[in-house]
C-alpha cells in the first residue's frame, strides 16, 4: 500500500462515504433492474462489470492521489486539443446508435468520448479562467472564453449528443459565475439566449424536437417517448412511501420501464424503495454536492476553486436533469445519473471527478499542517 493512514485522516471522509454509498446502492439496483430480463448464466453481468470497473477506478484514484492536482494546469491546453481530436474521431470512426454517433470501439470496451470530454472541459476551462477572476465584466472579456467552450460544444452537439452539450453549458455557466462575472452581463446573456431559443429549434434533430414536445405534453407521442415518461412516473409513484421491495417492482421487472438500468434507474429506486429510498439517495447527492462547494471554498488557489466548481456544476446538473426527467419535470435528454446509471465511461468520468475533488481537499489540508 503506497498510501499511509495519516493521509486517510486528511481525506474528505464525508464525500468519500457518500460516493461509496451511492455506488453500493447502484450495484444493488442495477442487479435488480437487470436480473429478470437477462438469461440466467449472465444474470449478474451488468453488476459484475459495473462493480469491477468501480474497483479498478478506485485503485486508479488512490494512485492519482499521489500527484498534486496543480500539475493539471500545465496540461490544460494540451488536453483541450486532445479533446477536440477525440471528438472529431467520433465523427469519422464512431459507431452510431439511434441516429447518433457517440461511441468508439476499443477492444472489448466501447468508449463514449463525450463523457471524458466533460472532465477535460472543466480542467482546460479552469486553467483558462484562473487569472480572470473578477475580470469578466464586458462582452469582449467573455467572448474568448465562450469561443473556447464553443468549439467542443458544437462538436458534441453535432454527434448529436444534446445531453452532453447541455452539460457543457452548465459547467460553463457555473464556472464563469464563480469567476465573478458581471451579473448584468450574465443577465444579458440569458436574455439573449431566451430570445434565440426559436432559432435553436431549427438546429435540433427531429427526435430531439419530439422529446421537447413530449416533455410539454406526454400525450403527443404516447406510444414512443411519451411512453417512457408515463411509465417512469407510474413506477416512481407506485413505490409510495416504503416501496415494493427489492426485485418486487412490477414496472421495472416486467419491462414496462425502458432503459431501467441506465437512464431511468432512479425510477427503479423509487418503485422498489419508495419515498424513503429516493429521499436517502437525494440526500446523499446533497452531501456530495455540498462538499464540492466547500472544497471549492477552501481551495488554496483559483485553479483548484474553479476545478471544484466545474465538477460540482457538472454533477448537480446531471442529478437535476436525470431525476427531473424520470419524475416528468424535465425533458428526456439521455443524461445518466452519476454513480447510479450503468455505464463504464460515465462511471470512470465521475470517479475521476471525485478524485480531483478529494485531491484538492487533500492538498489544502497539507498546507494547513
Amino acid at each position, binding site marked *: 500500500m503506497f498510501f499511509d493512514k495519516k493521509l486517510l485522516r486528511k481525506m474528505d471522509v464525508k464525500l468519500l462515504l457518500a460516493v461509496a454509498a451511492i455506488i453500493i446502492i447502484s450495484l444493488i439496483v442495477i442487479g435488480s433492474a437487470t436480473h429478470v430480463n437477462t438469461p440466467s448464466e449472465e444474470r449478474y453481468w451488468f453488476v459484475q462489470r459495473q462493480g469491477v470497473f468501480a474497483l479498478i477506478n478506485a485503485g486508479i484514484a488512490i494512485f492519482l492521489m499521489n500527484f498534486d492536482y496543480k500539475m493539471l494546469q500545465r496540461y490544460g491546453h494540451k488536453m483541450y486539443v486532445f479533446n477536440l481530436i477525440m471528438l472529431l474521431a467520433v465523427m469519422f470512426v464512431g459507431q*452510431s446508435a*439511434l*441516429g447518433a454517433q457517440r461511441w468508439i470501439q476499443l477492444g472489448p470496451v466501447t468508449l463514449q468520448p463525450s463523457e471524458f470530454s466533460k472532465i477535460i472541459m472543466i480542467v482546460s476551462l479552469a486553467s483558462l479562467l484562473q487569472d480572470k*477572476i*473578477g475580470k469578466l465584466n464586458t462582452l469582449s472579456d467573455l467572448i474568448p472564453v465562450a469561443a473556447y467552450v464553443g468549439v467542443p460544444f458544437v462538436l458534441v452537439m453535432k454527434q448529436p449528443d444534446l445531453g452532453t452539450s447541455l452539460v457543457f453549458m452548465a459547467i460553463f455557466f*457555473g464556472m464563469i*459565475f*464563480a*469567476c*465573478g462575472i458581471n451579473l448584468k452581463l450574465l443577465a444579458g446573456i440569458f436574455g439573449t439566449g431566451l430570445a434565440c431559443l426559436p432559432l435553436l429549434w431549427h438546429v435540433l434533430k427531429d427526435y430531439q424536437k419530439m422529446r421537447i414536445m413530449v416533455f410539454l405534453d*406526454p*400525450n*403527443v*407521442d*404516447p*406510444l414512443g417517448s*411519451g*411512453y417512457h415518461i*408515463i*411509465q417512469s*412516473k*407510474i*413506477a*416512481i*409513484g*407506485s*413505490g*409510495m*412511501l416504503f416501496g415494493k421491495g427489492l426485485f418486487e417492482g*412490477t*414496472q421495472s421487472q*416486467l419491462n*414496462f420501464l425502458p432503459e431501467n438500468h441506465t437512464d431511468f434507474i432512479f425510477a427503479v429506486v*423509487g*418503485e422498489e424503495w*419508495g*419515498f424513503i429510498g*429516493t*429521499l436517502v439517495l*437525494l*440526500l446523499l*447527492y*446533497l452531501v456530495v*454536492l*455540498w462538499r464540492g*462547494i466547500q472544497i*471549492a*471554498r477552501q481551495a488554496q488557489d*483559483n485553479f483548484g*476553486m474553479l476545478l471544484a*466548481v466545474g465538477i*460540482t*456544476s457538472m454533477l*448537480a446538473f446531471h*442529478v*437535476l436533469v436525470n*431525476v*427531473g426527467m424520470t*419524475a416528468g*419535470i424535465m425533458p428526456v435528454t439521455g443524461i445518466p445519473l452519476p454513480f447510479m446509471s450503468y455505464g463504464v465511461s460515465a462511471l470512470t468520468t465521475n470517479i475521476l471527478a471525485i478524485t480531483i475533488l478529494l485531491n484538492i481537499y487533500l492538498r489544502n489540508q497539507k498546507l494547513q499542517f
Partner: protein
Amino acid sequence: MSDKDIFSGRLRVLSIVIVLVITVLIARMGYLQVYDGEYYANLADGNRIRLVPSVAPRGTMYDRNGNILVTNHPGFTVSLLPLTEPISEEVIGRLSALLNVPVEEIHNKIAAHIGFDPIRIKTDVGPELTTIIAEQKDLYPGVVVEVLPIRDYIYKNQGAHAYGYVSEISDAELEKKKDEGYKSGDIIGKFGLEKVYDQYLRGTNGGEQVEVDVTGKPVQVLGKKNPIPGNDLHLTIDLEIQAAAEKAIDEQLVQIGAHAAAAVALNPQTGEVLAIVSRPAFDPNLFVNGISSKDWALINNNPYYPMDNKAITGEYPPGSTFKIITGTAALSEGKVTPEEKIFDSGHHWIIPKGNAGGEALGWLNFEEAMAHSDNVYFYEMGNRLGIDQIERYARMFGMGKLTGIDLPYEAEGLVACKAYKKRVFEEDWYLAETFDAAIGQGFNLVTPLQAASIMGEVAANGKRYKPYLVNKIVDVNGNVVKQFQPELLSQLDVEDRFIRLVQAGLHQVTKYGTAAFIFGKDYPVEIAGKTGTAENPHGRDHGWFVAYGPFNNPTIVVAVIVEQGGYGSQSAVPIGKKILDAAFHIPDPAQVAAQAKAKAEAEARARAAATAQVQKKQ
C-alpha cells in the same frame, strides 16, 4: 475586492442553488410517491396500460388526370390483446378453427410478440367472421377486431410493375431501417413506386394508450395520437394509355402464342412516363396480407419471371432499332450523304451478310434504307464508321447507362465495344462484329425504356430527358410536399439537319416502310417509327417497335418488345399502334366498322319499316 472575496459570495449563492435543486426534487418525489402514490399504484397493479396502435393509411396513387390507381380499403383484422394472464388453449383452438389458421401459427405469433399492443392473427377477414366474434364475445375473451387500412390495387395486374407492392417488413429490412422509425409488423413497400417512395407513402402511425381493467376492458384513455395518413403520389401515368397498352399486349400475346412482352410510353419532351407494362405480370393484392404458398409457387414457377419489370430490367439486343444510332453517326460523321445510293445485291461485298429474309433491295439512299431497314446499307455504314465511332454515338444516345427512372432494379444494358470484348473474351475485335453491331446485334443490349429514350431523343431533336413516374407528392392537407420537374440529361452533339434527315427516314417507315401495312394510308396522325427483329440464340427472334408522334410536335414516344414474337413488324407494331391509338383517341377501325355496320343495319331496318308502313297505308 480580492479574489477570495469574490468567490465566497458567489459560492454561497451556488450552495443555495444546490440545496434548492435537491429540495425541489425531494418535493417532487413526495408529491408523486406520497400524495399521488395511490393513483399510480393502481395503474401499476398488473400494469393496466395497453397500447392500441392505429395504423396510418398509405398514400393514394393517382394517374395524371386524377384517376385513382392504388388506394386502401378498410379491412377487419382479428387480433389477440395480451392480458395479464396467458390466453387459454381453449380460446386459441376455437380461434384457429374459426379463422382457419393453424394452432402452431397462433402460438408462434404470441411467442414472437413483445409488448402490450394487439397480436395480429389474421388480416382482412370477412364480415361474417367478425359478426361471430362480436356475437359470441364470451367464447373469445381477449380477441378483438380492429379495422385496418388494407392496400388495394384496384386494377390488379395493371401497372403492377410500376406501382409495386407492399408486405410486412422482413427482419433484414427491419435491421437496416430501425433508425428510420420502422417497427416489427409494419407494412413496407417492397417493389416499384411503393418501395421507392415508401418514406412518403407510409404516413405516421398513431395509437391510444389505454388503461384497462383486469379483464382487458378499456377503462380510460390516457393518451391518444391520431395517425397521419401517408402522402399521395400523383403519377405521370395516363390510365387510358396504360390500360390500352396492357390490353393490346395481352391480346397480341394470345394471338401469336408468345408469353412475355414489355412496353413503355414517354413524353419525349419531358421524360414523363405515360405507360409502362411488363408481361407476364402478377397481382400485387396477393402480397398485401402475406402471399399464400400456392400463389407464390404459381408466380415462382412461371418460366417468364412475372416479378421482373422487363421494361426496365429486361436487356435485349436492340436489333434494327439501333440503325437510328448508326444512321445518325454516319450522317453526322460525313461517312455518307443523304443522296448517295448503295447497291443491295442481297449481301454485303466484303462479308457475305444480308437481310433477314435474304431479299435484295437494289439501289437505296439513306431514307429508303431506313424505311426498309436494309441491312446491307447499314453494314456498309458500320464498315465506314468503325466500331469506335459506333460506340461513341451509342453512348452519346445514353446506351450502357441507367436512365435514372424512379423505379428499383433498373438495368444499364451494354454497348458493343472493343474494351468489352477484350475484358470478357480476351480477344481482338473482328470486322464481322462491327457489321453485327451496326444493325444492333452482337453485344449490344438495351432495355425497352432505353429504346424509348433513344427514339425520344430523335423526337425531341437530340434532347434526352430523365424518365420519371411521379409528378408531385401531396400531403393529406393538399400541400405539395415535392414537385418533380423534367430533367434534361444530355443533348446530342449532332447538327440539327442530320437529326431532321434521320427523322424523315423514320417517318417513311410508317408511310411505305416496314410498319406501313399496319398503319395504312389513312392513319390520322403522322407517326415516325422503326421496327426491329432481334436475333435470340435461345429461341424465336424478339420483335421490336419504337415510334413517336405527332411527327411535327411529338408528345409520345413508345417502345414495344415482344419476347420471341418473331418479326417486329408483325408482333410489336400492332401493339405500338394501339398504344398510339389510345394516346391520340383514335377509335379502333374494327370497332368503328362494327358500329357503322350496326348503324347502317338499324337505318335499313327503319327504312324498311317505314316503307312497309307506307305500303300498308297504300
